[in-house]
């Protein structure tokens, strides 16, 4: 059924009301998290668009604190898994243990049974563990023994990668990285923010506690609304142009990018870009997507989906450079 002007106006009003919790959440999180607004916004986009987030940043940038605070504000269950080289799939998903009293095997659920999972330093675990987690992310269910368990909803995985130490790591294959909706690169806070962080941490009286402002059920409702956000065909074509420009840059007068790109965005990139743009529009309390939404979220959705050639690496060209060129060349509707 095609949306009419009246439908969209109603939807806009509905979303304007329903998205009010975003401001509340931000306000609550700002009690303990100084700065990092960009990261928190992306976490919310992942949460609303039902996509997982891969975070890349040096240790100590409040990654754990952010996701822990977010789960507290949503009154959701949080779990943290530190990935190490000796981790086993059973340590993540759970296993069957023998109960001597009952003389039977019982299921012992792993830490993945939570709403928010922080998979810390995911690239330190071997591929077997990574694939167990990524399978759970994709299927949103776990099979232990003969029993299949559906994971809690909302279910958001925030995986971190440390870009500094590459020794003893198992780099995530491209196909698995593609399963993350967003790859967010976070940087250091500003001087003023860091000053605030020092004072906040050294003050013994400062014991700010995050209070639940919404319930997981509200998030599930919001997700339905996110899917309803109106996306015009012009925006859909704009998204396609961006993704296709990563595959065939020469079609967009970007011949110089051709030798730098080994592979472009997959159809999953198009889907995720559209979904993330809708979630971004929702957070901006709009019932429709505008080109700004696509551009705002484009780097986070696409940066891990554009493969670089050896030539690009030799010339220190990053996927962000390539995406910037593409965004500057593709006409905005």
């Amino acid at each position, binding site marked *: 059924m095609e949306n009419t002007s009246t439908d969209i106006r109603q939807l806009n009003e509905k979303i304007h009301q329903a998205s009010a919790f975003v401001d509340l959440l931000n306000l609550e999180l700002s009690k303990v998290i100084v700065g990092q607004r960009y990261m928190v916004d992306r976490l919310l986009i992942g949460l609303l668009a039902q996509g997982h987030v891969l975070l890349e940043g040096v240790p100590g940038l409040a990654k754990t604190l952010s996701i822990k605070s977010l789960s507290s504000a949503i009154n959701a269950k949080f779990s943290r898994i530190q990935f190490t080289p000796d981790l086993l799939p059973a340590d993540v998903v759970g296993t069957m243990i023998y109960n001597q009293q009952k003389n039977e095997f019982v299921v012992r659920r792993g830490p993945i049974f939570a709403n928010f999972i922080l998979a810390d330093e995911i690239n330190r675990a071997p591929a077997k563990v990574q694939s167990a987690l990524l399978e759970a992310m994709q299927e949103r269910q776990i099979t232990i023994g003969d029993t299949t368990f559906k994971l809690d909803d909302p279910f958001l995985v925030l995986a971190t990668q440390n870009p500094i130490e590459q020794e003893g790591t198992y780099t995530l294959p491209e196909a698995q990285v593609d399963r993350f909706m967003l790859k967010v690169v976070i940087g250091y806070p500003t001087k003023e923010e860091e000053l605030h962080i020092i004072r906040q941490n050294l003050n013994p009286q400062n014991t700010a506690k995050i209070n639940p402002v919404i319930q997981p059920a509200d998030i599930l409702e919001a997700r339905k609304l996110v899917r309803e956000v109106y996306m015009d065909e012009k925006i859909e074509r704009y998204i396609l142009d961006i993704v296709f420009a990563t595959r065939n840059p020469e079609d967009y007068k970007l011949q110089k990018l051709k030798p730098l790109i080994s592979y472009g965005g997959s159809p999953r990139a198009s889907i995720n870009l559209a979904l993330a743009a809708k979630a971004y529009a929702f957070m901006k309390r709009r019932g429709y997507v*505008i080109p700004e939404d696509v551009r705002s979220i484009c780097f986070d959705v696409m940066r891990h989906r554009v493969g670089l050639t050896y030539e690009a690496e030799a010339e220190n060209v990053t996927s962000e450079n390539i995406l910037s060129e593409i965004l500057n060349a593709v006409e905005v509707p």
Partner: protein
Amino acid sequence: MGKQIIFLFALLGLLSPLSSLAQQSRVEVNAKADTDKIRIGEQVKLRLSATVEQPTGLTVVFPQVPDSLSHWEVVTRSKIDTAGDNNKKIFSQTLTITSFDSGHWDIPAFRFDVVQNAGGATDSAFTGPLGIDVGTITVDTTKAFKPIKAVRTVGWNFWDYWLYFAIGITVIIIGIGLFVYFRSKPKKEVVKPVVPLIAPYEAALQQLQHLRGEKIWQQGDVKQYYTRLTDILRAYFEQQFNIPALEQTSEELLQHIKPVTILNQQRDKLRSLLTVADLAKFAKLHPSPDEHEAAIQQAIEIVEWTKPAAAKAPETVKEEIKQP
């Protein structure tokens, strides 16, 4: 007694330099050097010859000279040459020999075999010995040792390089030929880019007036109306102020017009126009007819406002952009 006589003849034949066969047929062999004194390492031409009177019925076999003789080395050997007339024939061979030992050295006698064609009787003839003095270079020991002479450069010779000269000259000739050919070839007419006769702001105004006249919003195509309206404005900004407006979102465009003062003064008007256009394009908003008219009027005003700057736009804009 008879046996004793035969033995005596045989002994004489062995001892004599010329055997009986040779004597009977008058075969004469000879070895002659072109000099009897050389310096060490110098070469001597040694001519071996056999003169046979005709007709003989004899075959003369030349000696097989080895590569080395005592104190002498054979450098070259010529082929056996034949000369003479009906009365006698002279067979000769020239050897080039040298010696690297100083002293007086004898060249041993060479043996020529003489074979009788009828019967196969064989005899030998020997050349006489030759003595040649091989002297060393006289060194004045009273003088000091001299250093080794430096490497001597070979004089420049044109024929050593004639091929390179030939290639170079050929390449130059081909180059000149090509140059002359292409220069004399009639040139294609260069198609000059068509310079728009009207200024960007005039073109924008014309297009806006045309859009106003079309009234496509009356046909229900509101989205198309606002798309064209904003495209005209963006193209105008791009041509007039070098802002890549067609590749920017509304918000980015509003950010990028800041350095262009004259455009920035119309920012609020532009913002409201772009907002309505975005809503019409992306949110299916149907503004009222008055709003349609107001939108195009705003666009015309923005273009008109920037019109005075248009004539001197390039310099003005550059200066304005430089300002922090």
